[in-house]
């Protein structure tokens, strides 16, 4: 099982955070020889309201929404109001120092490069 950026479901229960309800955003994981790309959907989250950290080989992403507020009567609702949170266990091949992230129109794209020593390498015969 060496090819996954795996999701971690264990809920970090650190004090005040435990009380807050989060929803898990949809995510797509892509892999190529260079590393992994993780795309996480967080509509309504701006760069300032996005928080990410790596701890114990686990990547956690928290996004707080700033939904456009509208004065008036709500006629119909399908959106959820909770903030986003999701954690991923990092594959040991990932170089955590080199993780890069950007957010564009509510989609967080993380680039997780593999460490040099695990990249496929051609060996030439002398």
């Amino acid at each position: 099982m060496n090819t996954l950026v795996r999701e971690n479901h264990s809920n970090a229960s650190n004090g005040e955070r435990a009380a807050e309800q989060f929803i898990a955003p949809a995510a797509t994981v892509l892999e190529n020889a260079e590393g992994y790309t993780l795309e996480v959907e967080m509509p309504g989250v701006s760069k300032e309201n996005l928080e990410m950290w790596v701890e114990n080989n686990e990547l956690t992403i928290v996004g707080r929404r700033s939904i456009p507020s509208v004065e008036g009567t709500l006629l119909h609702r399908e959106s959820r109001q909770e903030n986003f949170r999701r954690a991923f266990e990092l594959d040991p091949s990932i170089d955590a120092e080199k993780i890069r992230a950007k957010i564009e129109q509510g989609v967080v794209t993380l680039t997780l490069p593999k460490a040099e020593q695990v990249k496929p390498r051609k060996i030439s015969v002398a």
Partner: protein
Amino acid sequence: MSLIRYQTPNSVMWPSLNRWASLRDDLDTLLELPFLTGSGRQTQLFSGWTPALDLYQNADNVVAIVELPGMRKEDIEISLQDGMLTIAGERKDESGEENGATRTERFTGKFRRSITLPTRVDANKVNAIYKHGILTVTLPKAEEAKPKQIQVNVS
């Protein structure tokens, strides 16, 4: 005699094991996904992409807010016909062939949402803003649909 010609099983057995692992992962995810706890959006599991839509109304406007993360502005289509607002579009798969997906939860492809507006609106003054993956469509009410104060004259 055999009906199906013998085929060499796909040489490596690890990938298939991996598939089980990711299936288990997927099942785990399923239990956590928003639609199981949310209301009214269960259909998205079977019918592709159904972006969440909220509708508000105040004295001057009808406002629709749609969650459309990761779209290009030019791929969003907004139309108004017979008191029905339609928001459609397509999100293209830009992952590229060299990438293998180990998990795919984001939808790609077409979507279409239609909603009947509660009052008549002025189609020429509709305004749409796309920011942080959220589309806000503001539809000013037609003059005749706005609430009016009626003066009572005492004779």
